[in-house]
């Protein structure tokens, strides 16, 4: 079917105002935030309601047209690049917060609401929506659920999967299911909610999401410790956690990142340090002060320590957090293309894995900066290259394959929080094994028998 014919038929279903197929719209949706992946869709549709979604999905199932559900397109695994054409189902028009319930500590939202919008709204009730992916000011709840987005609070609070109580979703057949509900305890039937969280648009399209909220902490404090090398920083993290502290923030930057950030932002960082560890906690005033001071004391006594500073005020704390947040753009400035990876390993293996990543960088003559979440073992090795140097692109891809193998070797994973998408699909079987791959395929065929929902990705 020609693109224009497809657009006409969809217009008849949901109205011409919600269907676009001009060349500029198609080009704009040919990318998400993942470098090196692009594909032109045939049409962009923006459903306004669950019934619009049902109509579109039923039509697509009958005509065997791929559907790529999309939120803000800020994912880093090419989960929303239309590699095989089809319909981009842009969910950003369904962006209402339907309910914020303080006594039940939950909110009910449509999938197009952004993470930050929701958190700012529930802040008025002294509540917090916990998951805080780096993209939170733009990424949508639908996208957060589809990738089970993580963030900086994983160790203490968990990730998106821990905060989804219930879903309304449209299956690949056009049937609408409601999973879970409004309860913390609910074991009626298989936990389909948990299965759909992280399904990357391959099993169903979310049309309504019920999220759990927590009381908003009143205080937070931060400090920074510098170490001679990353192994010392990792050992310090182990000491902190085995001392019984469960802090909200334990983030690290390697020397490459520290130097890049300092050149970019002039924050007065110790650029001679092999590693920077940002630590912090949130909660009630005295408790937070106690926890952060305890962490500082442990750091001071750690081997390889160069210095520890506590942020004395909000501005100083903001500067430290900024150093962590601007790691990626600071690194990105060093080349024309940056590939941000997302492995996770058991915490005790972290130091060795980072050392091996450095060795891989040297072997393939690549600049790799690594930063990440020291508390939960989630590492973001970032390869910065010149995109016009085809040899360098190939070497980067070879290095990535070795980094994924390295993560698996240490009982880790190929992706901690970004997702599989198209970028990591070739490595998925290496992580989960053939039997599990077959199981995933079987699951997909039940939810989406026509194989139209984000085909050629998870379970396809």
């Amino acid at each position, binding site marked *: 079917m020609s693109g224009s014919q497809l657009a006409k038929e969809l217009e008849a279903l949901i109205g011409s105002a919600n269907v676009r197929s001009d060349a500029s719209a198609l080009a704009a949706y040919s990318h998400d935030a993942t470098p090196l992946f692009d594909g032109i869709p045939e049409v962009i549709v923006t459903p306004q309601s669950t019934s619009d979604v049902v109509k579109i999905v039923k039509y697509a199932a009958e005509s065997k047209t791929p559907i790529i559900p999309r939120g803000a397109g800020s994912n880093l695994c090419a989960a929303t690049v239309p590699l095989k054409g089809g319909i981009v189902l842009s969910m950003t028009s369904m962006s209402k917060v339907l309910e914020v319930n303080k006594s039940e500590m939950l909110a009910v939202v449509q999938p197009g609401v952004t993470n930050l919008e929701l958190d700012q709204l529930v802040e008025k009730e002294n509540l917090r929506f916990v998951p805080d992916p780096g993209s939170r000011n733009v990424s949508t709840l639908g996208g957060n659920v589809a990738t089970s987005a993580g963030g900086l609070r994983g160790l203490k609070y968990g990730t998106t999967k821990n905060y989804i109580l219930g879903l309304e979703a449209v299956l690949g057949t056009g049937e609408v299911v409601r999973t879970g509900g409004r309860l913390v305890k609910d074991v009626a039937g298989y936990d389909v909610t948990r299965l759909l969280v992280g399904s990357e648009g391959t099993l169903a399209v979310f049309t309504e999401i019920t999220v759990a909220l927590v009381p908003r902490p009143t205080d937070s404090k931060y400090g920074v410790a510098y170490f001679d090398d990353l192994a010392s920083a990792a050992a310090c993290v182990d000491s902190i956690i085995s001392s019984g502290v469960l802090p909200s923030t334990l983030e690290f930057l390697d020397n490459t990142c520290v130097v890049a950030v300092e050149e970019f932002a002039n924050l007065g960082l110790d650029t001679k340090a092999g590693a920077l560890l940002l630590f912090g906690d949130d909660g009630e005033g005295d408790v937070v002060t106690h926890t952060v001071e305890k962490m500082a004391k442990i750091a001071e006594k750690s081997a390889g320590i160069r210095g520890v500073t506590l942020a004395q005020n909000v501005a100083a704390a903001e500067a430290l957090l900024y150093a962590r947040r601007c790691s*990626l753009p600071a690194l990105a400035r060093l080349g024309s293309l940056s590939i941000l990876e997302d492995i996770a390993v058991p915490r005790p293996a972290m130091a060795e894995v980072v050392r091996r990543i450095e060795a891989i960088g040297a072997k393939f003559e690549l600049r790799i900066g690594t930063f990440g979440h020291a508390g939960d073992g989630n590492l973001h090795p970032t390869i910065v290259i010149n995109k016009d140097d085809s040899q360098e692109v190939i070497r980067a891809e070879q290095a990535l394959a070795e980094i994924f193998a390295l993560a698996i070797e240490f009982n880790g994973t190929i992706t901690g929080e970004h997702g599989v998408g198209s970028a990591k699909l070739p490595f998925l079987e290496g992580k989960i094994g053939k039997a599990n791959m077959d199981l995933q395929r079987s699951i997909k065929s039940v939810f989406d028998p026509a194989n139209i929902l984000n085909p050629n990705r998870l379970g396809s």
Partner: protein
Amino acid sequence: MSEKFSQDKLDRCISCGYCLPACPTYQLTGAEESSPRGRITLMRAVQSGKLEPENLLAESGFCLGCRACEPVCPAGVEYGVLLEEAREILWQGKNRPLIIRGLFLIVGNKLGMKLLGLLSPMAKERKSNPELHLMLGCFERRLYPDVSKAAAKLAPEVSVCKEQGCCGALHAHNGELEKGKEMARQLGEQLPGTIITTAGGCAAHLSSVIGRDRVKEFSEYWSTKESSVSKVQNNGHTIRVGLQDSCHLRNGMGVTQEPREILKQLGDYVEIPNAGGCCGAAGSYSLLQKPNSRKVVSQKVKDIAALNLDYVATVNPGCTRQLVTELRRAKVKTKVIHLAELVAMGIK
């Protein structure tokens, strides 16, 4: 294919999408192609030959050019420059709007500028500090001559030279980037030393060509002066006053606090919601894209009406014109006034 956009500027974008919530046209439409990231994707597709340049034409016109995407960009993408390049590529020949051709004719030559000045009595010629000059603007001198008069009165040390051209911002923003830069350089030669301007948009363009250190927007300049102003009264009460930021002053030059501090001395300052958001004037935008310009400003008109202000102060003539027109249309009584004129009222 020859290079069209500055490749290094296109490469800077990491497609993270942080710009989406800041973009007025994305907020209106929710459409990726109407966001800064989406437009850069289109520019890249044009650059690599995957997309015909014509397909970028509509978006190059729909974009306000407000540059609200720049301060929120973690990667430091110079979107404003990329937009200027896009318009230079696209707004040629039949694609150049007639209104723009007319405006170029007027401000692009000496006679046109002289006429604009003759039609309205602006600040008088005078020789004061030879290293300090007041810029008179192009359409500003015709539409709002009282602004330059107020600025001249407030700063007697500043020289006023009537033989001065347009800064070229109009050209640079509408498809004649090189000519726009050349005009800025000429103005920089006509007015040696520091140039003081009452137009945020002109300040940003001029400083991008002749250097940030040579350009001072009026509120920036006034903040450095020793002065004492008293609260402005209206019918026996101290005025309630808000500010409409100038997009390019805010997003291009980072000037946000100075006008607010001045207004706090002149009255009861009230921050208008989204004061830093574009009012839809956006240079020639209110002429070229009238319906969209009105869509952009509509929430602002409601917000201003709800605050029951005596004055909205502006720091750019385009914003003045847009707000005067739209507040009048909505029958909102709040008066629109340039910051320099309000300061003059506080000096009396």
